[in-house]
């Protein structure tokens, strides 16, 4: 299990577009599960609707736990995805 954190830079927060892209990035790592925690709510990062429901805003910290096959590589690619898109 590997845990990463990310502070949201996008002024619109975790809105529809980054939520959709994030779910796609998570789904691309088929052997891994990603759970995303924000303010005591934990959702499956592969589910767009769960991500949008969090209402995470700019400056909020997201914690993502990645577990499964090649979890180190999956966590690293998730980390770079978040830097580039959120």
């Amino acid at each position: 299990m590997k845990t990463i954190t990310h502070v949201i830079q996008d002024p619109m927060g975790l809105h529809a577009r980054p939520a959709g892209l994030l779910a796609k990035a998570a789904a691309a790592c088929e052997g891994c599960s990603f759970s995303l925690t924000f303010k005591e709510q934990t959702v499956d990062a592969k589910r767009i609707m769960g991500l949008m429901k969090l209402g995470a805003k700019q400056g909020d910290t997201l914690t993502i736990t990645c577990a499964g096959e090649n979890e180190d590589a999956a966590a690293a690619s998730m980390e770079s995805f978040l830097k580039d898109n959120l």
Partner: protein
Amino acid sequence: MGIFDKLFHKPQSEHPVITAPVAGTAVALQEVNDPTFSQEILGKGIAIRPTGNQIVAPCDGKVDMMFDTGHAVSLISTNGMEILIHVGLETVQLKGKHYTTHAKTGDTVKQGQPLISFDREAIAAEGYDLITPIVLCNSDRFPILQAHLGAVSSGDPLLTIDA
């Protein structure tokens, strides 16, 4: 029709159907002037250029999230389809102005039940595009068999799902 057809090809009537949440003209999602929708980032779907003023439930299910601003609603159908209805583009910026909600997060709803009313003329007058994408966020699990394009009345079949 042979026995194998009967076994493997369900008649059209047995496939789940998502009905039109609002009257208008149904167009391909690619015609929506917002890449989040047109590039299918949220999933596959369809869009309606509304001529009506009310969004109704497109299937039986549960309101997964009613946005406080009333500009969008997501539902989970009884059989697990995750449907997002976004009333107009960039309309989050209206902060609820011109929208009235008739259901709340967690409510169980029946197909055709009112969810949101909106003042189409007022929203258009403020310069917003009212096109309303209807997206199946888990279309990987629920492939769309047929999209019914063209003029639709509220409650008409809109998407036939291969499930």
